């Protein structure tokens, strides 16, 4: 019974998304007619550029470079964020020791981390991934920290009485409760990472989508800038819809719906 209602809902959600996408393209087209094409190229000009970009061998190389940085940076910051956030949530001593520093880490702009990383480690991949991970890590930590503090202590008590080991309590009782927070951190983290990666590439590297965006911007070739951005955005949407939403559905099938 859960499945067929879900199927109908997904169809409706898909339809709504498609509709909003069409509205977006139309709005873009109208605006592009009113503004000179050197500032805002229209959808058709951008589409032609996208074709050119994909046809050239360059695209896959730069895209691959950016993707590697994003995924490795995401993995590092998520892993670190989950570990530190969980420790802060479960143990007051850790929380008291770290809370101030995490807040400080959060407020330092990604640009500052990038500059320091490039200075200390040179114009290397390591510097890039370091900067990306450090920038994102505080947000994920705070999210997970909040999630762990929110867990139902009654369920922990129950599991203690039934003899569950500490390891089992963590993986079977704590972790499932913080999964919604993990998905939130994943999305949030991904958003930050895309932004920081592009900045890092602009500043100090010689490959990647950010580098290409900067390159074309310096030549004031807006169709190319729009083209690269569009591909970027499309890929991100793809990632969200195909990967993240699917995972989320599978992990949160047990949740009752809120009827507000």
């Amino acid at each position, binding site marked *: 019974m859960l499945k067929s209602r879900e199927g109908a809902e997904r169809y409706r959600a898909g339809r709504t998304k498609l509709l909003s996408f069409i509205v977006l393209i139309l709005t873009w087209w109208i605006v592009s007619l009113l503004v000179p094409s050197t500032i805002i190229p229209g959808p058709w000009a951008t589409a032609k550029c996208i074709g050119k970009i994909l046809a050239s061998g360059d695209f896959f190389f730069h895209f691959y470079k950016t993707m590697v940085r994003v995924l490795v940076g995401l993995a590092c910051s998520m892993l670190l964020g989950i570990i530190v956030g969980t420790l802060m949530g479960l143990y007051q001593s850790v929380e008291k020791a770290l809370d101030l520093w995490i807040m400080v880490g959060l407020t330092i702009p990604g640009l500052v981390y990038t500059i320091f990383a490039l200075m200390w480690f040179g114009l290397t991949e390591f510097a890039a991934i370091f900067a990306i991970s450090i920038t994102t890590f505080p947000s994920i930590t705070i999210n997970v920290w909040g999630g762990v503090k929110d867990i139902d202590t009654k369920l922990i008590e129950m*599991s203690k009485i*039934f*003899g569950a*080991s500490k390891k*089992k309590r963590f993986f079977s009782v704590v972790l499932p409760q913080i999964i919604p927070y993990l998905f939130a951190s994943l999305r949030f983290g991904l958003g930050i990472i895309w932004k920081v990666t592009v900045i890092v590439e602009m500043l100090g590297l010689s490959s990647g989508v950010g580098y290409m965006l900067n390159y074309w911007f310096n030549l004031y070739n807006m169709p190319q800038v729009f083209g690269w951005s569009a591909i970027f955005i499309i890929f991100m949407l793809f990632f969200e819809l195909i990967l993240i939403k699917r995972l989320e559905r599978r992990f949160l099938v*047990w949740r009752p719906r809120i009827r507000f």
Partner: protein
Amino acid sequence: MAEIEIRNLSKQFQGHKHSSPELLALERLNFTVNDKEFVCLLGPSGCGKSTTLNIIAGLEEATTGEVLIDRQVCRYGDHGKFRIGYVFQEPRLLPWLTVEKNIHFALESQGFSASQWETISSQYIKMVRLKGFEKSYPHQLSGGMQQRTSIARAFSIEPDILLMDEPFSGLDEITARALRQELLLIWKQNQKTVLFVTHNAFEATFLADRILIMTRCPGRIYKEIRVDIPRPRDYDNSALFEFNRAIVKDFIKFVCSDEDFKNL
């Protein structure tokens, strides 16, 4: 022999600056629950009944005195040592697991091998009359059904002792009545040592072999009453009703003393 012995149990709560006051919750509690006996701890809210259960389950530390289960001392943090089945006032089921997987969770925590889980859980699910709901999630079940799952979980681990903390007080009277009778039927087939906490005198009369009446502040055993009415007990039995009337009169007189009313 799984008997519970409480010796000179006292619990003093330390005051916290901004929250709870200093409180002597339990004072020199002494009682025994014999093997396979059904004993009710009857008392008003706040008399320390739940604290007593928590200490037995190893969740809280006694200030003085000791708890012996099966003649062995049970200390704070010892939860893995004895097989304790616990039914709480709320079902406390893991919401992301189905009914049968909730029971498997308890079985796994107690060290049962995976090959046995399926057989054991289906046996007890059938016993609490939830057959067909094995793959349902807790939010899809009513309060009574969730509590039945919780009871199945507690029995399924073949516990040495069964602790129940007002398990039916959160349900409507009709469901509660049905569950009380079901509990006795299950208990008849799986006789365990049971310590059942309640504030409902009729419930205690219906269920127990013996009733221990607790007063509060500090919590002490005021009286011990043996319920001599033979089993199976009929809910509408007049003997039961009379018995209960006598208890309640006593209960109200000594437990809610004039002191309580003077201070209002």
